[in-house]
C-alpha cells in the first residue's frame, strides 16, 4: 500500500552538468578530507594544489557551461530550484577564484603559524560550495541552505587560529550575529511564502506580475526582514558593526575570502531576489536600499579615516565598497546588475591581492598591522610595495585601474535609474576614500623604515596571488571591454525552461 503510493512520487529531473561547478568544490573538499584521515602524511603542497585544482575544475566547467548557455539559453533544473543563467555562471567564477586565492594565501600562512592541517582548505571549499548554491538558487529555501553552508564554514574559519584569542573572539562574534541575522532572513522567507504562496522565485515573480495584493503587509514585512538579513551578511550599515572586529581577528587569508567570496555570494542573493524577482514591486524596497546604501557609504568611508590599524581600516573600506555595490542593486535594471557583477569580479581580485600583502606584512602571530610597521616598505621591499600601491589605487578608484571602471559603472547605473542623491553621496564617499588609501601610501613611500623593521619575504604561492591580482586589476582597468562584455551577458533569467 505504502509502496504503491511511493511510486507515484515523481522525482524531478536533475541535469548533472549544470551542477558540476558545485560538485567539483564539494566533492573535492570531502575527498581531500577523507584522504588525509586515511593517510596522515600527505604533504601540505599536495593539499593546497588539490584545493586550487578543485576550484580550477569549477571554473573550467563554468566556462563550458557559459558556452552551452550561448547555444541553448537559460534553463532551470531540480524542479525549478536551481536556475542556470549567465548570472549564476559568472558569479561561480568569482567565488571559485576567491576560494582558490584564499587557499594559496593559506598555504604559507598555516606553515608560519604552526597550524598545518587540511581543515582550512576543506572549509574554504565547502563554504565556496554554499556560495555557488546561492548564486544558482531559484528557490528561497535552496538559497537559505546555500547561505547556511557558506556561513557555518566561515564561522569556524574565523575562529581557526587556535593560539590567537582575537581569532576565537572573532569567530564567536561572527557566529552569534550571523545566526541572529539568519533567523531574520528566514522569517522574511516565511512571510514572503505566506504572501505569495510559494518559495520558488519563478512562481513568486509570476504571482506578483499577475496579482495586485490588496493587503501587502506580509509581503512588505517579508521583504524588509530579508533585506535586514542580507545587509548583515554583506556588511552594510546599520548592520555592519561585526565587520571590523571579525576582519581584525580572523586569519588574514580567511579575511581575503570573506571580503571577496562571501560578499559576492551575499550580493548574488540581493541581485537575484530583489533586483530580479521583486522588480515588479520596486517602489516598495528601493527606498530602503537607498538609505542602506547611503549610510553604508558614509559610515564606511568616515570610520576608516580614524583607524590606526591597517586591517581594521580595510574592514571599513570593505563596508564602503559594499555601499558602492548596493548602487548596482538599487538600480534594479540590467545595467545595474551587470555593473554590480563587474564590481564584484574586480573587487574579488583586488581585495585578495591587498590581503595577500597583509598576510606577509602581518608577520608571525598575524598581529602587526600598524601604520608604523608599513613605514619605508617602498625601500625595504619595492615589489610588494608596488603591488600594494596598485591595489590601493584601485580601491580608491584611480583611472587605469579596475576600481575606477567598477565605481564608474555602478554610479552611472544609479544615475541611469534616477537615484541621484545616492549617486552624489557615492561620489563624496569615493573622494573621502581616496584620502585614506593615500595615508597608507605615504607611510609606505615617504617615511623612513623603523630600525627594528622585519625582513619580509614573498612566499611563492602568495606571489602567484599578487601577480594574478595585479594583472587582473590593470588589464580590466585599461581594457574594461574585455570583462564588460561578459558582465553584460550575465543577467538573471528566471525561466522554467528545461
Amino acid at each position, binding site marked *: 500500500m505504502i509502496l504503491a503510493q511511493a511510486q507515484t512520487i515523481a522525482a524531478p529531473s536533475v541535469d548533472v552538468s549544470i551542477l558540476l561547478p558545485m560538485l567539483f568544490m564539494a566533492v573535492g573538499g570531502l575527498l581531500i578530507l577523507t584522504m588525509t584521515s586515511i593517510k596522515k602524511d600527505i604533504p601540505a603542497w599536495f593539499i593546497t594544489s588539490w584545493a586550487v585544482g578543485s576550484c580550477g575544475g569549477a571554473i573550467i566547467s563554468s566556462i563550458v557551461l557559459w558556452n552551452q548557455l550561448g547555444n541553448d539559453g537559460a534553463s532551470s533544473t531540480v524542479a525549478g530550484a536551481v536556475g542556470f543563467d549567465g548570472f549564476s555562471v559568472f558569479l561561480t567564477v568569482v567565488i571559485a577564484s576567491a576560494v582558490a586565492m584564499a587557499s594559496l594565501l593559506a598555504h604559507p600562512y598555516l606553515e608560519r603559524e604552526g597550524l598545518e592541517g587540511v581543515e582550512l582548505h576543506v572549509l574554504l571549499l565547502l563554504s565556496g560550495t554554499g556560495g555557488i548554491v546561492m548564486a544558482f538558487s531559484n528557490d528561497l*529555501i535552496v538559497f*537559505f*541552505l546555500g547561505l*547556511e553552508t557558506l556561513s*557555518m564554514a566561515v*564561522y*569556524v574559519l574565523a*575562529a581557526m587560529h*587556535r593560539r590567537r*584569542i*582575537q581569532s*576565537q*573572539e*572573532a*569567530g*564567536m*562574534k561572527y*557566529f*552569534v550575529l550571523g*545566526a*541572529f541575522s*539568519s*533567523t531574520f532572513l*528566514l*522569517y522574511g*522567507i*516565511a*512571510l514572503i*511564502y*505566506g504572501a505569495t*504562496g*510559494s*518559495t520558488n522565485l519563478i512562481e513568486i515573480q509570476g504571482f506578483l506580475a499577475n496579482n495586485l495584493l490588496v493587503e501587502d503587509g506580509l509581503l512588505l514585512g517579508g521583504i524588509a526582514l530579508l533585506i535586514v538579513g542580507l545587509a548583515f551578511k554583506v556588511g552594510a550599515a546599520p548592520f555592519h558593526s561585526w565587520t*571590523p*572586529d571579525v576582519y*581584525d*581577528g580572523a586569519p588574514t587569508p580567511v579575511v581575503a575570502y570573506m571580503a571577496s567570496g562571501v560578499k559576492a555570494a551575499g550580493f548574488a542573493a540581493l541581485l537575484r531576489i530583489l533586483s530580479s524577482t521583486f522588480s515588479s514591486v520596486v517602489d516598495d524596497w528601493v527606498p530602503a536600499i537607498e538609505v542602506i546604501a547611503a549610510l553604508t557609504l558614509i559610515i564606511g568611508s568616515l570610520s576608516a579615516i580614524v*583607524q*590606526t*590599524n591597517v586591517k*581594521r581600516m580595510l574592514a571599513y573600506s570593505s563596508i564602503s565598497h559594499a555601499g558602492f555595490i548596493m548602487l548596482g542593486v538599487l538600480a534594479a535594471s540590467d545595467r545595474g546588475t551587470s555593473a554590480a557583477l563587474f564590481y564584484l569580479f574586480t573587487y574579488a581580485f583586488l581585495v585578495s591581492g591587498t590581503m595577500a600583502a597583509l598576510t606577509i606584512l602581518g608577520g608571525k602571530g598575524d598581529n602587526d598591522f600598524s601604520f608604523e610597521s608599513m613605514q619605508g616598505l617602498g625601500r625595504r621591499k619595492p615589489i610588494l610595495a608596488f603591488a600594494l600601491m596598485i591595489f590601493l589605487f584601485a580601491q580608491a578608484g584611480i583611472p587605469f585601474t579596475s576600481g575606477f571602471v567598477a565605481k564608474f559603472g555602478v554610479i552611472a547605473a544609479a544615475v541611469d535609474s534616477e537615484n541621484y542623491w545616492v549617486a552624489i553621496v557615492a561620489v563624496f564617499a569615493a573622494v573621502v576614500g581616496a584620502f585614506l588609501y593615500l595615508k597608507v601610501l605615504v607611510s609606505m613611500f615617504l617615511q623612513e623604515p623603523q630600525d627594528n623593521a622585519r625582513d619580509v619575504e614573498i612566499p611563492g604561492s602568495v606571489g602567484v596571488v599578487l601577480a594574478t591580482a595585479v594583472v587582473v586589476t590593470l588589464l580590466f582597468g585599461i581594457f574594461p571591454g574585455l570583462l564588460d562584455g561578459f558582465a553584460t551577458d550575465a543577467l538573471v533569467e528566471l525561466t522554467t525552461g528545461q
Partner: protein
Amino acid sequence: MLTPTYYLVLSALVFSIGAVGVLVRRNPLVMFMCVELMLNAVNLTFIGLAWGLNDIGGQVSVFFVMVVAAAEVVVGLAIVVAIMRRRDGATADDLSVLRG
C-alpha cells in the same frame, strides 16, 4: 475558530522574545537558546501559513530549518568549547579584545 492569524501572532511574539533575549543576555549558551527560539518561531510561521494556504511546501521547509538549526548549534558550541579551553568564563562581556 482558529485561523492562521493566531499562529502568526503567536510566532511573532515568540520571535520577539528570542530577539530580545539575544540582545540582553550575556551568556553565550543562553544566546544560542534564544536563537533556537527564534528559529522555532519561524517554523511555527511556516506551518501556520502552510495550513492557511493549504500547501505542503511550507511544512517541508520546516525540516530543512530544523537541520540547519541543529548544525548551527554544533558549530556554536564548538567555538564556545575552544574559547573555554583558553580561559575560565565565557560571557559576551569577556570577549572584548577587539575594539576600535
